[in-house]
């Protein structure tokens, strides 16, 4: 069971309290009607699914209830950092380097 730092509560809590909501930084298009079918399908379904560092959305669902984002290494399963919703996406490449890839 992973231990996850909640950036809002400021504490580490067991994974049980959290729910993972998939890849982060996929914004809903501001004007969906202006998107092509391909763009909409991409928004709905296409994810990067990398072997390595990924930015994910997590929710502290059984804690403060907040969504936040986290960089996680899908190989080691380690959390590299967490940051609040709305904060810019860190450069995964830099973290990949630190994670030894």
């Amino acid at each position, binding site marked *: 069971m992973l231990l996850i730092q909640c950036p*809002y*509560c400021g*504490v580490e809590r*067991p994974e049980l*309290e959290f729910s993972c909501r998939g890849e982060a930084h996929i914004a809903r298009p501001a004007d969906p009607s202006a998107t092509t079918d391909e763009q909409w399908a991409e928004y709905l379904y296409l994810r990067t699914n990398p072997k390595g560092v990924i930015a994910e959305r997590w929710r502290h669902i059984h*804690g403060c*209830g907040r969504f936040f984002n986290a960089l996680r290494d899908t190989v080691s399963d380690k959390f590299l950092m967490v940051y609040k919703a709305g904060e810019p996406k860190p450069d995964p490449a830099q973290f990949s380097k630190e994670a030894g890839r």
Partner: protein
Amino acid sequence: MADILTSELYSADSSQAPLLVLPDVTIMPAAPAARVSLRCRETGLALAAKAFGTPIPQTPLTAETAANRAAFWLGPDEWMLVAPESQLAAILSDLETHLDAVPHSVVDISHRQDAVLVSGPRAGWLLNTGVPIDLHESAFAVGTVTRTLFHKTPIMLWRTGPDSFVVEAWGSFMDYVTGLLVQSAEELKAA
């Protein structure tokens, strides 16, 4: 101090039998209370504090208490305010009046959850049979309040003293919580 203040807010419900009485731990249903969910942005905090009579805590996982009042930080824009049951209507209207000018949400959740009081030297141990977080005082000091899980059920947990806790759960989950607490305490009766 928290012990004294809570005793007014969270007292054992004299109309209900204790759920567990052992030398090292007891579980008592708490009497009903007024509970209000307060949601607002920073602009509302001082106004809400004025209306409610305690500061609205901004430090995560903390509570502010005053006579017959407790305000719990549950999230960065979410608080639960607790007061004696009879004061519900007054509190709701005070909050609405004071917060009128700022965006906010005040919702009555008095009946949504029930509370039990778990206390005694083995209270922390008993809770840790189902609560996955560290309840050692160094990690979960007196006064700390948090939402977490008890086995498969969400709860709110407030430590009111070294050996005393308030556990709240939604009404329909309380039988599960107390049933498991009582079952897990069974071994304490063994010599």
